[in-house]
């Protein structure tokens, strides 16, 4: 018999706990606004998840996570295949091995289930003994760690949203006032630092570097905490009227600015 309810009354961690403790097999379908997800379990373990259009086939998943590139993908047959068929084909072509496929599927499933932890309202239905489609590659994942990590991420997200509520703000480097020797920045942090411009919002920087809201919040929060940057209202850029692609080309620089730079460097 199906179990039905609303996430408002029964949260996802509670549902996952129930499935884990009862070692249940079945499909949990959740809905929130315009999104729908179905999470499959086998004997209390998470085995598959489909989330809106994210449930693309294995080939697209591997492309998305960078395991195969566009050029390699173009060389592969274009007709539709099941995930298992794609897996065999990719292993046989030597592009990827079995362990890499399993790891990519596992990581993808985890990333998607962690997203569901932010769903706090919407209907759910658990249908016992419903398994994922046969063609799907199944990677069993223990739910205990999923519940812990998902809950930790929710807390982290809440804290970051409180610290940095508005991604429409811009950033300004204030590094002259702090000692920076020995500071260690990751490549993603460098990407953000190199894009800091009072005419560009945090959201725009995130979009330019394909960072999620959570990722950009974490990076900016770290930079703010280190006293490396400050939040400033966005200054309207000169090139605001241009499209994103056009904006890559630097706006013509005025002679006055160059003369100021020359004068300053001469005086150094």
């Amino acid at each position: 018999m199906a179990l039905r309810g609303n996430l408002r009354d029964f949260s996802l961690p509670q549902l996952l706990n129930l499935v884990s403790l009862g070692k249940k097999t079945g499909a949990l379908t959740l809905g929130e606004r315009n999104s729908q997800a179905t999470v499959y379990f086998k004997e209390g373990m998470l085995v598959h998840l489909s989330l809106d259009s994210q449930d693309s086939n294995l080939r697209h998943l591997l492309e998305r996570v960078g395991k195969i590139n566009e050029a390699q993908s173009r060389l592969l047959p274009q007709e539709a295949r099941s995930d298992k068929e794609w897996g065999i084909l990719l292993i046989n072509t030597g592009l990827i091995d079995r362990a890499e496929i399993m790891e990519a599927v596992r990581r993808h499933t985890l990333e998607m289930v962690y997203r569901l932890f932010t769903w706090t309202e919407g209907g759910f239905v658990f249908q016992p003994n419903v398994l994922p489609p046969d063609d799907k590659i199944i990677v069993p994942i223990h739910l205990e760690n999923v519940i812990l990590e998902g809950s930790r991420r929710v807390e982290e997200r809440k804290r970051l949203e409180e610290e940095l509520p508005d991604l429409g703000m811009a950033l300004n480097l204030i590094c002259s006032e702090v000692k920076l020797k020995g500071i260690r920045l990751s490549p993603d942090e460098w990407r953000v630092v190199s894009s800091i411009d009072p005419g560009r919002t945090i959201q725009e920087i995130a979009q330019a570097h394909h960072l999620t809201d959570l990722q950009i919040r974490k990076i900016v929060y770290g930079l703010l905490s280190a006293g490396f940057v400050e939040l400033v209202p966005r200054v309207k850029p000169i090139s605001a009227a241009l499209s994103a692609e056009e904006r890559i080309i630097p706006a013509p620089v005025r002679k006055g600015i160059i003369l100021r730079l020359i004068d300053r460097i001469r005086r150094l």
Partner: protein
Amino acid sequence: MQTVKIVVTGPFNAGKTAFVGSISEIEVVSTERRITDHSQSIKDQTTVAMDFGRITVDEGLVLYLFGTPGQRRFDFMWEILSEGMLGFIVLVDSVAPETFREAKEILDLFKNYHPARYVVAANKQDLEDAWPPEDLRIALKIDSDIKVVPCVATDKESVKGVLLELLYSILETAEE
């Protein structure tokens, strides 16, 4: 506050970190860690991300200097760094002709990223075996309208000279 950006690029060990460090008003921020490949013999630590320096022009204008990662495995950073730059400097190790081809490749890549003005800095001119700038121009097939400037990246006055030459070039095409 307006910010402008100049990128300092070039092959591994060309002197980018020293260049930015010589002129920056802040201690240069760089991500460095011990390297384990063959280049370890050249220096103990090398920049694996990039260097970052700053020159405050006045209350309304700041110049940022970004040194690019020297090794090709970090070239994913180059295009990101080049976005919106005012101009760029290609630093060449004048005593390491084996790096000239790579310097040329980096130069061509940056030219393709964005249409910005640039100069070539012939670094390590204080060393006995340094190739003169005009010989470097020939070796790297640099057009005659591009400046090839002598440079000693550890010397502030020399670095100032390179930056000024770049700014003079930019000035030629700047709007009134």
